[in-house]
């Protein structure tokens, strides 16, 4: 029997997969085109087709706190930028705080001190199992709003907790260390945080810290017991073993887990609106109310959070490559 010279194209292994993939891609593209066309048609009919001109109009509302100069006569894009800067401020300080707290609590799980171990456990279990929104409302309405103003404020060395804000000591002009001081019944200090910001940060840090602690604990657990024993036999005490032997080996396991915790912290920062902090979402909501440009405002919001999260991922992936154990 003679072998067939050529395989028919519909049975050719070099052609068929391309055809199938091409067909699927075509269907997907057609569906997307149809939906987008429909969207544009309906939006045009409703007079709501995407327009960005409103971004340049005066915002005519004030924002409670801002790192960059802002007043009501400035345009909407500036107001949104103020919100973005406020969000980034909360996210960045939150990331650092949650990492420090989480690492400490995660390491505490391997402490020789039973009380420290149990306290760490209780913290993680309590915080992890209560919704973040409730915690934020608790920190703000129950804890921070119960501080008093003026001379009745809670005064610690270098720190004053009042209803009007959180005042921290810092270097004033000429590298002079300056603590909070009461001037005409109002506290003044080099650093002042609003209680809204303080409540948001406290909530974000304690909440994310609990998850980070679990990631760190898991990372340390992944380091073989023999490494502990080897470090101890060299005469290193607990802290030195942890710092020089165990943690460096745990990092490759910890970093990927941290990535998702950091991203969720960034996303959770949008809950700031519940405690009156003027973050990106809060400013965007006011903007939406005034302009009625729902689609544009939400696209901006989606884009902003997407970029923030992708940036966090990028940095964490870079970090991950740095700490991976190189097999030789």
């Amino acid at each position, binding site marked *: 029997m003679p072998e067939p010279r050529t395989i028919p194209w519909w049975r050719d292994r070099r052609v068929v997969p391309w055809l199938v993939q091409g067909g699927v891609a075509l269907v997907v593209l057609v569906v997307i085109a149809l939906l987008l066309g*429909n*969207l544009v048609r309906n939006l045009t009919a409703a007079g709501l087709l995407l327009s960005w001109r409103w971004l340049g109009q005066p915002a005519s509302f004030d924002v409670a706190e801002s790192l960059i100069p802002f007043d009501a006569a400035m345009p909407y894009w500036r107001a949104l930028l103020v919100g973005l800067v406020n969000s980034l401020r909360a996210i960045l300080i939150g990331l650092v705080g949650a990492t420090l707290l989480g690492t400490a609590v995660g390491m505490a799980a391997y402490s020789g001190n039973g009380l420290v171990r149990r306290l760490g456990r209780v913290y993680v279990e309590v915080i992890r199992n209560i919704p973040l929104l409730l915690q934020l409302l608790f920190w703000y309405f129950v804890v921070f709003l119960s501080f008093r103003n003026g001379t009745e404020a809670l005064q610690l060395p270098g720190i004053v907790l009042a209803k009007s804000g959180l005042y921290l000591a810092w270097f004033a002009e000429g590298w002079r260390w300056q603590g909070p001081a009461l001037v005409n019944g109002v506290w003044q200090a080099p650093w002042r945080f609003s209680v809204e910001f303080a409540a948001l940060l406290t909530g974000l840090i304690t909440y994310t810290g609990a998850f980070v602690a679990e990631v760190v604990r898991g990372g340390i657990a992944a380091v073989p017991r023999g490494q502990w024993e080897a470090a101890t036999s060299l005469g290193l005490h607990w802290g030195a073993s942890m710092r020089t032997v165990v943690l460096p080996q745990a990092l490759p396991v910890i970093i990927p887990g941290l990535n998702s915790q950091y991203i969720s912290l960034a996303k959770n920062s949008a809950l700031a609106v519940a405690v*009156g902090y*003027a973050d990106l979402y809060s400013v965007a909501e006011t903007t939406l109310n005034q302009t009625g440009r729902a689609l544009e405002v939400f696209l901006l919001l989606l884009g902003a959070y997407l970029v923030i999260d992708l940036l966090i991922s990028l940095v964490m992936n870079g970090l991950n490559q740095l700490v991976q154990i190189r097999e030789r």
Partner: protein
Amino acid sequence: MPRLRRLLFASPLLLALAIGGCADEGGGGGVQSEKMETIRSRGKLVCGVDGKLPGFSFLGPDGSYSGLDADTCRAVAAALFGDPSKVEYRDLNSSERFAALASGEVDMLARNTTMTLSRDSAGGNGLSFGPTTFYDGQGVMAPVASGIKSLKDLAGKPICVESGTTTELNLADRMREQAIPYTPLKFQTGDQTYAAYLGGRCVAVTSDRSQLAAKRSSFPDPAAHVLLPDVMSKEPLTPASVNGDPAWSDAIRWTVFALFQAEELGITKANVAAKLAEAKANTNQADLRRFLGVEGDFGKQLGLPADFVVKVVGAVGNYGEIFERNVGTGSPLKLERAENRQWNKGGLIYSPPFR
């Protein structure tokens, strides 16, 4: 093919975005209204309210809603179905109300909403407003003990305000005009706003005067809080429906006008049956006969039953009765009629002729 896979992975997101934008095509001509058809086939009116504002819309302990806004919903349900109980209330906060209406989640809003140009215009929020049911103005409330007497005393102080409201914009405008620096603390819900005020975070809270009075009535010590004399704005609180279904908007508009007209004609919940009998007996009372649907086809022109006025007034009473019951001097809010009197008594409540 990682690239193709990535595209496929992303496509559900795009799909969701695109589908979200697919509003149903508007349709129906003449008196026929797609919205009214939907409501009739559903068997009840879905009405967007605040739900937490005594005197306007308030969910009581027995699970029923009371208030001027709730009664507006009831009046429209009575006009459509002849039964004021065929309403499903949907509590909305000030930020979600317009999205809920635009998406069709609610059929109408009776949610102490100020009528403004940008909310009414097709290029703005694109709402269709009915007649104003309460003429209000923005005020400021502060604790009596704070000694604050006017806006000037608020310089440099934090003021609590609900975000997504005209209130926050008027506050900014008035303070800018008078060059008074201040810190706006914005909260997403009224509950949070007033909790922060009562918690002492802000020295004052600003909102519509009626709302401040309503909230104050539910404070632990109402007498410890005072409304400043400054009135910062005009706040005509008005029911609204979505732009694009004129027949439905007309039905709401003329149901509310019927409440005004009934008060002007002295028709009350108690005497509407007697008035109807009188109109039926006396063929000379043409105005009354047309108003109550004994003759003419006003109901039909609106796509409503001929006797919708009788049903509406029989269910909730006339405008004056609704006002007195919910917010008037006999209610916990103790508000004067003021601008909300009938036009012939010096107020702004005015119904065009039923003709």
